[in-house]
């Protein structure tokens, strides 16, 4: 902390916190002797990779541990109350009213059967200090402050009737309704599109400042935390790496680990033009049932190059991939692979055509059968396409494992025994096993920590250099695009907005939509959000409400 702490304003004081989790018949340490202090009105950013214990520590600030976890040491002093030793009944009188929690997935945190307004005021109603009508008016006021559309009536809707970004803001209103002293935000914008994220971030920040609420902001996105926090604490393996005031932390991190986190986003690849078109889709129209989702989409993918398809959710990126793979036959237009038209339907394609176009998914968790071992998963395409069995198959699997920087010890593991990055590597190995010409990568890095993302991107690049595989790289993250692509296709509402070489697309002038998308990507500058909001306010016309 840079300034001398004012003892009277100290709200939360956690000392020597240690927490253990139970798995595999034993207790394992999750958090080791971590201290955390928070003053009234202060925002603390908690960052680290997944598994670093940041969510566990955040929840511990409420005196709460998840089932299967326990406090083994330390005190949680919240405004003079000792939370870690209180019983659940007493804690309940504090949770939701004096300390509230905003979860990553708003959609999973609302009861689908109740209206938003009723859920928003539930905790405050329990307090019984103010009448229901007062609370409802207050909630509507909060909706207004959070820039929600139609604040008067939006509360009468059910959770499924609003968008993800709106729901996340309603959840913030819900947390704010009882005017808590402390709010814990657990990755509240991770699941949102960048354009929506800007909205949510600025709303949260304004509201926290207006009510002088203290907040713990948990995230793995450094650029986001730079906008939100007064102070940043870096966690790794359940221990504190370092802590400093935001500007100090960004400009001069002390520890090597923090520096490595900071440098990830600077990955950049020189673009290379390719003239040998391997896959070309032309004038594709496609629809789910009666709703048309792709309009006249044309994309060329040169051999051995990477084309990034950029856009927010609902822009038709993944649908384009489904058309290429044959999962969704197009209404009109053609998919040409090496000068030959591919049959629109999956079942009409030959085994060799299937082999040459492989796919990697966003969620490696759901892309691997949890009941199959790594050996089975990578071995199957070897057997299916190339007829490798027994010893030969096993040898090849181990070769592939080494190619993705893992080793033979992973052969017998099940998917849930792998970390997120390792899982994605196994999926890459499975695609690689088929010896494809093209790999379609659908948001393959967006569910991973930044430092792991860097590893995956480097791996993909190395494989491209070695085997000349072409990538169709679907993503919404501009940093990823910079790191891997040669060419860029920007999509919006099922149409191609812009298409060209990377540097050409990333340098101004941009069409309106590309401009909005590119400017919404958070940067590691604590003033970025302020500058952006000021700029947008000045330009006036480019409000982002249209997107939401």
């Amino acid at each position, binding site marked *: 902390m840079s300034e001398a702490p004012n003892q009277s304003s100290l709200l939360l004081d956690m000392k020597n916190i240690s927490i253990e989790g139970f798995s595999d018949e034993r207790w394992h340490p999750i958090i080791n002797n971590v201290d955390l202090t928070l003053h009234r009105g202060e925002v603390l950013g908690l960052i680290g990779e997944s598994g670093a214990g940041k969510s566990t520590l955040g929840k511990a600030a409420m005196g709460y541990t998840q089932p299967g976890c326990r406090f083994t040491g330390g005190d949680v002093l919240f405004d003079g109350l000792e939370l870690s030793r209180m019983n659940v009944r007493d804690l309940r009188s504090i949770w939701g009213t004096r300390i509230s929690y905003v979860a990553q997935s708003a959609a999973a945190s609302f009861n689908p059967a109740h209206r938003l307004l009723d859920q928003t005021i539930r905790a405050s109603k329990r307090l019984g200090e103010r009448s229901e009508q007062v609370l409802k008016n207050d909630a509507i006021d909060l909706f207004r402050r959070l820039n929600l559309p139609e604040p008067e009536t939006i509360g009468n809707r059910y959770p499924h009737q609003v968008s993800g970004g709106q729901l996340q803001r309603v959840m913030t209103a819900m947390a704010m309704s009882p005017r808590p002293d402390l709010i814990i935000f657990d990755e509240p914008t991770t699941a949102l599109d960048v354009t929506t994220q800007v909205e949510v971030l600025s709303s949260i920040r304004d509201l926290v400042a207006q009510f002088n609420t203290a907040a713990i902001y948990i995230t793995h996105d450094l650029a986001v935390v730079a906008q939100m926090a007064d102070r940043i604490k870096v966690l790794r393996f359940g221990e504190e790496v370092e802590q400093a005031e935001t500007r100090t932390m960004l400009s001069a991190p002390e520890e090597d680990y923090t520096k490595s986190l900071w440098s990830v986003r600077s990955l950049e690849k020189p673009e290379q033009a390719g003239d040998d078109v391997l896959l070309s889709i032309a004038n594709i129209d496609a629809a789910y049932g009666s709703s048309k989702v792709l309009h006249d989409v044309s994309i060329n993918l040169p051999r051995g190059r990477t084309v990034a398809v950029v856009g927010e959710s609902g822009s038709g990126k993944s649908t384009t991939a489904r058309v290429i793979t044959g999962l969704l036959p197009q209404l009109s237009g053609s998919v040409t692979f090496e000068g030959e038209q591919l049959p629109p339907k999956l079942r009409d394609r030959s085994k060799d055509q299937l082999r040459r176009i492989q796919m990697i998914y966003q969620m490696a968790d759901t892309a691997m059968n949890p009941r199959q071992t790594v050996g089975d998963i990578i071995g199957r395409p070897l057997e299916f396409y190339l007829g490798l069995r027994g010893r030969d198959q096993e040898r090849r699997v181990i070769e592939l494992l080494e190619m993705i920087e*893992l080793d033979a010890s992973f052969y017998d593991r099940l998917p849930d025994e792998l*970390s997120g990055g390792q899982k994605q590597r196994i999926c890459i190995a499975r695609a690689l096993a088929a010896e494809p010409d093209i790999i379609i990568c659908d948001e393959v890095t967006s569910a991973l920590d930044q430092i*792991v993302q860097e590893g995956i991107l480097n791996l993909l690049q190395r494989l491209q250099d070695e085997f000349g595989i072409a990538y169709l790289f679907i993503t919404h993250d501009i940093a990823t695009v910079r790191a891997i692509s040669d060419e860029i296709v920007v999509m919006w509402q099922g149409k191609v907005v812009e298409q060209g070489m990377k540097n050409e697309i990333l340098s101004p002038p941009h069409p309106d939509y590309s401009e909005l998308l590119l400017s919404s990507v958070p940067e590691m500058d604590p003033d970025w959000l302020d500058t952006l909001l000021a700029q947008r306010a000045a330009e006036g016309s480019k409000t982002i409400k249209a997107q939401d």
Partner: protein
Amino acid sequence: MTETQNQAAPSALNETAAVRLRRSRFERIRILLSRAPLTAWFGMIVVSLYAIAAVFAPLLAPYGEAEIFAKADDIWSSKHWLGTDQIGRDVLTRLVYGARNTVGIALGTTTLSFLIGGGLGLIAAIDRGWIDQIFSRGIDVLMAIPSLIFALMLLAIFDSSIIGLILIIGVLDATRVFRLTRSVSLNIVVMDYVEAARLRGENMGWIMTREILPNILPPLIAEFGLRFIFVFLTIAALSFLGMGVQPPTADWGSMVRENAKWITYVPYFPFPDAMYYALKPLLPAGCIALLTIAVNFIVDWFLHETSGLRDV
């Protein structure tokens, strides 16, 4: 869990992951059993006793299944521990053979219904098109008719041989298995790994047995235990109505029916004999009840272990 912690440059090998200890199957079962609650142990012991009785019936039973002795409706004696029935067959022998017949038929029927219902359910879930519609609506029609009445009707039309009984109840019961399999499979079918298998060009058989089946096995196994009990009760009910297992084959349901009349005479017998006549219909009924409870205990435990709801 081995936690690999390395402060050096980040590398994929060193990423933290929860790797379970490699244990032999024997060791895993030992750990599982050591945590089993008393009720589960009770269930397992009872079921094993029934299994032993069913397998070794000819060795355990004192007499032949349909062997007739001179004195009918005899009360318990050192020769006939549980007396004889209305035409002079040894009741203990009939009970032991009943385990073999009743449980055997129930097992066969449940297996059949799972093969039919499970297979069709998987196909319907993978297809999600008109095949699914045909199967599902057909099953709805079958389920709309009360199954016991339907079974009685079919048994009257065809005959009540053991094979006929197994086929009819198996098909009728498959409707419920179909619905369960279809609904749990639908959650798995949408997974990316099933899509990955389809993109690879795998056929229906592979997707059904390798990608989906292993992931829906826990609810299916639990359902198998419960279905088994229901089939068991259905057969007992049919036998009680005279349409189930036909004499001279020993069966608990028929034994309850044959001995039910004795309950009404109990007050007219002197004390020790009265006990015997009260027990006569209760013994086969108790065999059914005991197995029902035991299987349910095991299923409860299994569900608890696989659902992830267990508290630490």
